[in-house]
């Protein structure tokens, strides 16, 4: 793992260097460079159409970059996409669990895909259900769960195979403020155990919970720092204003 350390001795989980994706003459992601460290909560912000999804798909090994380089948990995004997929977890607001499978079936299905043994599966599903307090619901369809519970379950399933990095794409849309905070408790816990968290969100108060955040505008990273320093840099009191100052300059018609 020596080569994964940067100059300051921090272990690097994600390293992107001039990563670019071009569709015809449209540059969706334009030479983006950044590092994310082990156990860090990294917020990946940007307006709709700024290129977040494109960048995330490359980092997850789902889309081949046009140029530039990136390593995820030390694996190359061009050549080692299967290794990347084994070492990451992924959860999105739009797709996460199968609604017409039960809670237990979903856990077994995803655990199976990630290669957990029968014994591990039995042990881990029991522990997960107990931790979420879902003992009474284990055999109910996921469709019958309130959205907040679905999100907590989806997150827990995404980290079931103990990935080094978990990608969260707008994980908390549409839930109440109390449930949203419970979800962030799960994120803090995972980060505390050394899992690297890469998260997109439209809630600017959630951006404040991240160790560092980047803001994409028109395919490029326009700002990257701790929330505190970004607010200082822009001379404003909230992340909302930082975001607004950067994103209102965007040229792309929310593409």
């Amino acid at each position, binding site marked *: 793992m020596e080569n994964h350390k940067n100059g300051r001795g921090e272990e690097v989980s994600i390293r992107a260097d001039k990563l670019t994706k071009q569709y015809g003459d449209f540059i969706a992601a334009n030479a983006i460079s950044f590092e994310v460290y082990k156990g860090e909560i990294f917020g990946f912000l*940007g*307006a*709709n*159409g700024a290129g977040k999804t494109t960048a995330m798909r490359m980092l997850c090994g789902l889309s081949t970059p046009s140029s530039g380089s990136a390593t995820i948990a030390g694996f190359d995004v061009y050549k080692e996409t299967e290794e990347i997929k084994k070492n990451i977890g992924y959860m999105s*607001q739009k797709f996460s669990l199968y609604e017409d499978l039960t809670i237990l079936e979903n856990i077994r299905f995803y655990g199976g895909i990630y290669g957990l043994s029968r014994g591990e599966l039995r042990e881990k599903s029991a522990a997960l259900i107990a931790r979420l307090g879902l003992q009474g619901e284990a055999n109910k369809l996921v469709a019958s769960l*309130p*959205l*907040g519970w679905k999100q907590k379950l989806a997150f827990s399933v995404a980290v079931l195979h103990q990935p080094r990095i978990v990608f969260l794409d*707008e994980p908390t*849309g*549409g*839930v*109440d*403020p*109390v*449930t949203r*905070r419970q979800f*962030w408790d799960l994120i*803090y816990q995972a980060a*505390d155990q050394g899992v690297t968290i890469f998260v997109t969100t*439209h*809630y*600017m*108060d959630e951006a*404040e*919970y991240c160790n560092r955040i980047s803001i994409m505008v028109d395919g490029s990273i326009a700002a990257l720092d701790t*929330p*505190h320093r970004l607010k200082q840099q822009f001379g404003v009191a*909230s*992340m*909302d204003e930082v*975001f*607004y100052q950067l*994103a*209102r300059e*965007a040229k792309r*018609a*929310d*593409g």
Partner: protein
Amino acid sequence: MQTITLNGLTKVYGKEKIPAVNEVSFSVDQGELFGLIGPDGAGKTSIFRMLTTVLLPDGGGATVNGFDVVKDYRQIRSSVGYMPGKFSLYPDLSIEENLSFFATVFNTTIEENYHLIRDIYVQIEPFKKRRAGKLSGGMKQKLALCCALIHKPTVLFLDEPTTGVDPVSRKEFWEMLKRLKAQNITIVVSTPYMDEAALCDRIALMQDGKILSIDTPANIVSAYPDQLFAVKADRMYALLSAVARYDNTINSYAFGEYAHVSLPAALGQEAAGAALKNWLAQTGLEALEVFPTEPTIEDCFIKLTMDHLASAKN
């Protein structure tokens, strides 16, 4: 004048007859911008669907423009605009075709009511030959609003128009709503974003099919009963667990870069803050900041939710 009235409106689903909307009563005045604020599952969409006559109530009743939502559904349908939460235009028709379709269905033309949609339509007009299914989220949202407005409705129902939309586009959308309100259109809008609540004339905070509170945003904030403090320290996670253990804490939670802690009003502001800071210092936290802060709608919602959960348990 009251444009919308709900009287014990109720909707139940499934064999278990679980109430999605539980005896909800309120009214909306003409020209008002009224917000239904609450999470997914609070019952907002069911209320919208009953008021727009696409869903029958199981109890109670409601009127829109003086018309009954069950008996007079035809009159209501021709006089209201409805933008559902899920994109419901024709993906295979172009921007232009969708708009002219909705105008025709309501026996009008785009030209006749163009003044209502002009501000919004000019932003998507350069792409008018593009199929709706190929549009970005923000453009779909603008087209859907145009289609809901093209027959010059007197009441506009907008179900979570800004969910999943970035903060800049959300701000633009609310500016459009303000301009529509200026044209005397009554607007009922739902949102899970608490910061948008402050932009409404009045709001109803909802959870589990019930209204927790209904008033102007300013009155809801001023009715907050406890003393609220913003707290910061060198280690956030340790701070959150520490404030949760503090004896006097009523509620505590992360709030942006601070933790919010509510303490009983009876303690007195200065004494309560000093005691809290003192106690936190003893737990080994450093770089402590403790200061009183004004509650936001989100703080009020959290307070009401906690009270609601506590009373549901008893």
